[in-house]
């Protein structure tokens, strides 16, 4: 028993001395390490925003809010020149092939990428590390538009395409995931164009379920009637009865109309009380950043909700009347394109389906 006690005491003494020595070392080195990490971060931001004379962290509360819903963002800084904000820099953490990748992404106020820099990685030397060694990777991000998610391409040409490094696919994508995560945070918290998440009707009805949330069943109308409607209405494609139990509550009508860049496909929900339930633009090829506001700016589709269909709808920059919907500035033709489709659905309803 004595022996064991002696052993335990010896071990504890050694342990305690060791702990003490290490605590002392830690006190000496930890501040230096923390300071260096901070400086490295600031330096990276300053290197990217060459015009900036100041790089400052954003408000702590806002950062906490961003981090609570965005798992990639670690830090956010604002870059200033002469006191004015010229852009934002995000430090993002994502997974690569060999471990975590830390990337700094700098975005300009005009919605383009100022630049990126990979700060830390554990990728395979000579292969994955090309994301750092090959300048073509980082430079392929410069000037790209943030309107749409960035994607990889072996020969990037589009506004949202960046370089896919051959032999380093997973590493290239690892950085991209972090940058796209920063993009989301930037758009959602620092611009007027938040990222619109792809809506999915969780009851499995597709777009029908999205425009007519109260219905629990959708039945295609009689085929002969649909043919009759289509013969006289060039917009209508499909029509469904929206039912709640045994009762018909209204109709969900699919239309195709002409927009600026091509066809626009819209689904319009019309309730039997003569009002629009909701609309959804489900396909379009409008100009990114301008025409695509018909999808990205929630105010547009929302302006249709509850409007009266009796006389058809009209566009207005400030829609107040119950037949007015939002005319998006800078997206006139696209707004009109959607309106043709919706009015086409209203026409079909008023002439063939309502009492």
């Amino acid at each position, binding site marked *: 028993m004595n022996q064991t006690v002696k052993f335990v005491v010896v071990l504890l003494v*050694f342990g305690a001395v*060791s702990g003490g020595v*290490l605590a002392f*070392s830690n006190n000496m080195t930890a501040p230096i*390490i923390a300071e260096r990490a901070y400086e490295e971060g600031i330096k990276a931001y300053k290197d990217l925003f060459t015009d900036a004379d100041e790089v400052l962290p954003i408000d702590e509360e806002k950062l906490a809010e961003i981090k609570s819903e965005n798992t990639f963002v670690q830090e956010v800084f604002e870059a200033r020149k002469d006191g004015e904000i010229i852009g934002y820099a995000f430090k993002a953490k994502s997974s690569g092939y060999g471990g975590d990748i830390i990337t700094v992404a700098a975005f300009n106020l005009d919605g383009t990428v100022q630049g990126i820099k990979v700060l830390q990685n554990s990728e395979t030397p000579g292969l994955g590390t090309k994301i750092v060694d090959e300048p073509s990777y980082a430079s392929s991000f410069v000037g790209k538009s943030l309107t749409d998610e960035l994607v990889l391409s072996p020969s990037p040409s589009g506004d949202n395409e960046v370089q896919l490094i051959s032999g380093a696919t997973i590493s290239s994508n690892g950085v991209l995931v972090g940058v796209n995560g920063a993009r989301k945070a930037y758009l959602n918290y620092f611009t007027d164009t938040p990222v619109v998440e792809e809506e999915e009707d969780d009851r499995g009805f597709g777009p029908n379920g999205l425009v007519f949330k109260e219905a629990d069943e959708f039945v295609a109308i009689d085929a002969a009637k649909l043919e009759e409607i289509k013969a006289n209405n060039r917009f209508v494609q499909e029509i469904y009865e929206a039912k709640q139990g045994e009762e018909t509550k209204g109709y969900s009508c699919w239309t195709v109309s002409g927009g600026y860049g091509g066809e626009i496909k819209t689904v319009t929900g019309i309730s039997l009380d003569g009002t629009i339930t909701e609309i959804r633009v489900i396909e379009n090829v409008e100009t990114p950043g301008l025409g695509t506001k018909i999808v990205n700016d929630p105010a547009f589709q929302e302006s249709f909700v509850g409007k009266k269909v009796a006389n058809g709808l009209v566009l207005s920059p400030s829609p107040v009347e119950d037949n007015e919907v939002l005319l998006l500035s800078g997206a006139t033709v696209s707004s009109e394109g959607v309106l043709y489709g919706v009015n086409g659905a209203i026409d079909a309803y008023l002439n063939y389906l309502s009492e």
Partner: protein
Amino acid sequence: MKTSNILKNGLINENAIFVQLIGMCSVLAVSTTAINSIAMGISVIAVLTCSNIFISLLRKVIPDEIRIPVFVIIIATFVTIVDMFLNAYAPDIYSALGIFIPLIVVNCLILARAEAFAYTNGVVASAIDGIGMGLGYTFAITILGIVREILGSGSVFGISLFPESFQPAGIFVAAPGAFILLGILIGIFRTILKKTQAATN
């Protein structure tokens, strides 16, 4: 034991890597470049020498039955100190060596020397043994690092040796190359050792 004998022992006759074949994991992983190899070697020399000195100093108060855990505590303490100082003062080396810095604590070489030499010898001799074994380790890992860097990246110590157009064989910087080259190096070293030993007999 004479000082020069102790040193020679560590460097050649009982070279950790080429002869004893211990402490290999770090050698294979870290030797991607010559600089990394030397950095690792110096770290190992530091830990090995310090732990040898302290274990030898305290050998009378360390009970035999619990000597291994005590060795481990002492070695781990020095490894952690090296880890902190590298992180603070040489961050590039710190991230290059990565997880292999804390793994120095399980480098069989250090525990083996503690057990085989420091626990039963004087402080000065133990210190020299630590330096000698450490140098042997450093010698081996650096040669491997130089060869791998030349063949795999076309440079040595970061200085490019070949024109831009030369495409180095990346495989040597990767895992397979490490194994194969180390195997060949051990074969070469052993042959040389045998021939010199035969010559002196």
